[in-house]
């Protein structure tokens, strides 16, 4: 009888599998980024292309657009696995489900959250954000998309098996991620105005720690209910 694989190996196997599957359907994976780019293009058209005005709303626009873009992707987090039964196998595998769900969410974040962070400097520049603020904008989105993925993962797990769950996922996720939006947009705004964004960034980091440590428990409980 072979020894049971260690937790890290199991986690990395889940992570690698999800990434491989996502890259095979890369058209789906790039949708959030396309969505973010398009929403960000709408604002100069709707408001005015004047740089000063755009700079005033840039932090909010960028954050709200990133939030909505990552909500779109949440639907794919557990849907396919639930339909083909592999989620059931994960639940039955005997490995701690909370641990496995951390890696599933991380894989999801790598596919849908990280690209948003990577294109954010381009979007921010198109909204007349000064180059000095780009690092803070990226950092705030890096922490923020993490919070979104974990909290949204809980909502996605709860709505497993619900018909037309897309709207419901957003309704459940948005109230819980509003604090992240407040601190993230505040950090980006402070940086754009040339001030230190240390405070809100630390609070955002605290939110990330909180959601990484608590959300997997909720996801595991919800997945167990979902596959019953």
């Amino acid at each position, binding site marked *: 009888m072979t020894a049971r694989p260690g937790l890290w190996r199991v986690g990395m196997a889940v992570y690698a599998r999800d990434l491989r599957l996502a890259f095979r359907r890369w058209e789906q994976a790039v949708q959030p980024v396309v969505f973010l780019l398009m929403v960000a293009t709408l604002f100069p058209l709707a408001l005015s292309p004047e740089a000063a005005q755009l700079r005033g709303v840039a932090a909010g626009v960028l954050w709200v657009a990133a939030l909505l873009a990552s909500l779109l992707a949440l639907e794919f987090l557990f849907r396919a696995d639930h339909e083909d039964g592999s989620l059931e196998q994960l639940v039955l595998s005997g490995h701690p489900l909370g641990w496995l769900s951390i890696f599933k969410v991380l894989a999801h974040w790598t596919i849908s959250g990280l690209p948003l962070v990577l294109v954010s400097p381009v979007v921010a520049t198109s909204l007349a954000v000064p180059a000095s603020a780009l690092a803070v904008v990226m950092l705030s989105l890096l922490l923020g998309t993490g919070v979104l993925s974990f909290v949204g993962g*809980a909502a996605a797990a709860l*709505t497993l098996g*619900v018909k037309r769950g897309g709207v*419901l996922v957003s309704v*459940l996720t948005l109230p*819980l991620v509003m604090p992240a939006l407040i601190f993230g947009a505040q950090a980006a705004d402070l940086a754009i105005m040339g001030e230190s964004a240390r405070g809100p960034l630390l609070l955002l980091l605290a939110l990330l720690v909180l959601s990484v440590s608590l959300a997997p428990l909720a996801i595991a*409980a919800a997945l167990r*209910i979902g596959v*019953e």
Partner: protein
Amino acid sequence: MWTWFHKLASPPHFYRIAGLTIPAFSWAAGLLVAAGLYGGLVLAPPDYQQGEGFRIFYVHVPSAILSMFVYATMAIAAAIGLIWRMKLAHAVAAASAPIGAWFTACALATGSIWGKPMWGTWWVGDARLTSELILLFLYLGYLGLRSSFDDLQRADRASAVLAVIGIVNLPVIHYSVVWWNSIHQGSTLLTPGAMPIAMKWPALCMLAGFALFYGAVLFVRLRGEVVRRERSAAWLREVLVK
């Protein structure tokens, strides 16, 4: 004590007890609210700063306190239902959510009407106000999630997980006036000496009245939930036919 608890959790026993207590709760709630309203709107002196406008306090504060109290009840009941698989606990959570949502809506609406003459605006994106609004969204999300399952057991358990997640919002609402520079004033009701007795007793009457009103409505709704969940049980047919 535990036998009492187990007895109460059995649907036939609860159905009977609830039927007996609903009139008592309703009358007590009605009398307390009537006394509180008379004391608050007629007897209490006008506020030295806010004038007569402060009287909306007598509806606003009890609704706001109840909005959080009902959520706490709902989340605790949901947790009990998840952990001990107690059917009646899930029913308590399910019956509480709409009541709590209305208390929250009431607190937001009265606060908004209060804010217009006092702050000069209907709404500000302030910590206390936003977190209370988030509470309303949590209630609505809970109701939405619950209604989207056909299977009652899955609806119970999935919405219970959501109720437990959402409890992180309660301390944020409560301490929002302490942690942040809020335009919303701090608690005067619970600070000793911050309010004269003539102003305070009607508020406490209203609070007790609102709490009893919640109890009465909760029991009415719970009886409905019990009927829905036990509709094929023999005891229910006996009770209803009698």
